[in-house]
């Protein structure tokens, strides 16, 4: 079943077309990688799905419902979580508070006014703390975390949301090789139970995690298929990978 479907989606800034007639279908439980050179429209595509930018044409369907033009928080509540390209965490709050803010189905201010409990006892909280390796940093202010830890914290926050669809914009940017490997393990363990769309440049990481890869170029679909197919695709080599192939 298609969880997410983009139909003939387009985005223009004035006269400049960023995305033009882009189609994408992502099935439940799938991990889809979005590739493309700089300016191909990958991040814009995520902005359009999550409502951060308004589409100039086309439609977005999530779980069979048209979510085109809804505001960000409404789309999030439908079950779409988002990790940003530049890691965004609450720098002045502690790590545990960061996760606490992300947690919970109640998002209205009045229901939260009388809510004092911590989710520390909740199973998922423990799992995520373990998964992201932040156990001994819980009372640290998030602004003091290393870059890799900040990335993991944000991934942890998105997981804490318990979203059906996770949009991950460059989750391994700035990570060491070891950290990248750890992240790929996290992602592989999410496959099946979660649906993910990952924008990434690191090919070894993509090889590690991807089922199907979608390649974008100049706001359009260039190729789509499993990694073996993409690596040998002539068009992809020309615009993105260079003639020497994938490193």
């Amino acid at each position, binding site marked *: 079943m298609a969880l997410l479907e983009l139909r003939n989606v387009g985005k223009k800034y004035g006269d400049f077309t960023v995305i033009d007639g882009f189609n994408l279908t992502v099935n439940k439980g799938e991990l889809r990688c979005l590739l493309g050179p700089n300016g191909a429209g990958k991040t814009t595509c995520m902005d359009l799905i999550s409502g951060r930018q308004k589409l100039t044409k086309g439609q977005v369907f999530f779980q069979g419902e048209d979510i085109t033009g809804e505001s960000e928080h409404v789309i*999030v509540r439908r079950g779409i979580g988002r990790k940003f390209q530049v890691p*965004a965490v609450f720098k002045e709050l502690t790590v545990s508070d960061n996760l606490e*803010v992300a947690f919970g189905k109640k998002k209205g201010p009045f229901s939260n006014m009388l809510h004092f409990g911590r989710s520390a006892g909740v199973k998922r909280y423990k799992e995520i703390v373990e998964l992201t390796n932040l156990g001994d940093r819980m009372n640290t202010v998030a602004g003091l975390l290393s870059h890799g830890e900040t990335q993991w914290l944000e991934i942890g926050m998105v997981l804490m949301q318990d979203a059906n669809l996770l949009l991950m914009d460059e989750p391994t940017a700035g990570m060491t090789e070891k950290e990248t490997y750890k992240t790929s393990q996290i992602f592989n363990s999410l496959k099946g139970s979660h649906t993910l769309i990952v924008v990434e440049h690191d090919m070894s990481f993509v090889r590690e995690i991807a089922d199907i890869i979608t390649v974008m170029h100049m706001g359009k679909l260039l190729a789509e298929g499993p990694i073996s197919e993409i690596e040998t695709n002539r068009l992809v080599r020309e615009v993105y990978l260079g003639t020497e192939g994938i490193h």
Partner: protein
Amino acid sequence: MKQSLYQNRKAQWAAYLAVFALLAMVPLYFDNPFVINQIARYTVMAMLAVSVSLVWGYGGILSLGQGLAFGLAGYGMAMTMQMQYQNPETDPIPSFMLTNELDYLPWLWEPFWSTPVGLFLTLAVPTAIFMGIGILMFQARVAGVFVAIMTLAILAAWYSMAYDMQPYTAGFNGISPPLPFQIFGYLIDPYGAPAFWICVAFLALLTCGAKFLMQSKFGLVVQSIRDDAERARFLGYNVAYYQVLLFTLSGFIAASAGLCWVMVVQYVSPTSLELSLSISAVVWAAVGGRLSLMGAILGAFLVNGIQSYMGDELQQIWMIILGFIFIGVVLFLPRGLIGVVEKIFSGKAATTDAKVIAQVREVA
């Protein structure tokens, strides 16, 4: 890292209750009506600082218009007190209106014949206005310095209006009700202990209420919005909704301060709508520590105390002195005086935390 005593919630509540209990005992130790009135005034100013701490320290919304709720509530209270003095049969029109050639009571004043209605309007109107301003600003995602500019401009507009509508507001002269506020048949002497205790009760209740709220998940979300509104939005929170509620609440606290102010000074004029009062309130909160409600209270008492006991010759240059205090705090104590308390209780690790945060802030 272990949680310090400063961050321990039970210790915090104990400290808050101790401070309010001590404050309430002031009339038992000082028999001087002047001193009691003076400290009552500081208490009212502390309330205004709490409203700033809530909206700016916790919510990251730098409002330079807190004096708007304060001043409007002040006028509401003065109108209520004035109408308590007027007699519907023999003397229905306040004397300043007669001298301004107004020979009927304006409709704006009519509801104030009734004290309960008057008190209700005193608090409800400024709160509603803050809600309206909040909805307009935060729906449009106005943030940062633009909030400061807008609130400042709105305040300036209301100041001019209060100043210009002389027949209705007595203009520059202001309204001075001939008798103190009267409730349940008692006159509340502005220099007496009951007036003082009412102010302390208002401050204690509002501060504890605000603190309670900031410890709930609502407070946590508000602080997360301060750090990164976009991130909070993408965790499913309607950011504008939270901001409007916080702003409205701060308006209500500032309005309560305005009500108490006129009760203890028995006078209101456009000075309470002046920009300098609102900006001073921001300075008090910053000096004491805007990230803590108690810090804001401390700042208000301290700065106002310094101003009162500084000597007449220095009063002329008070704003310059206040400016230097502000610069000093921003440079050396980014978390305000309460930050020093935090350091003492937190040990070394948290001290470096605070320093790094200050650096992060400067870079950002």
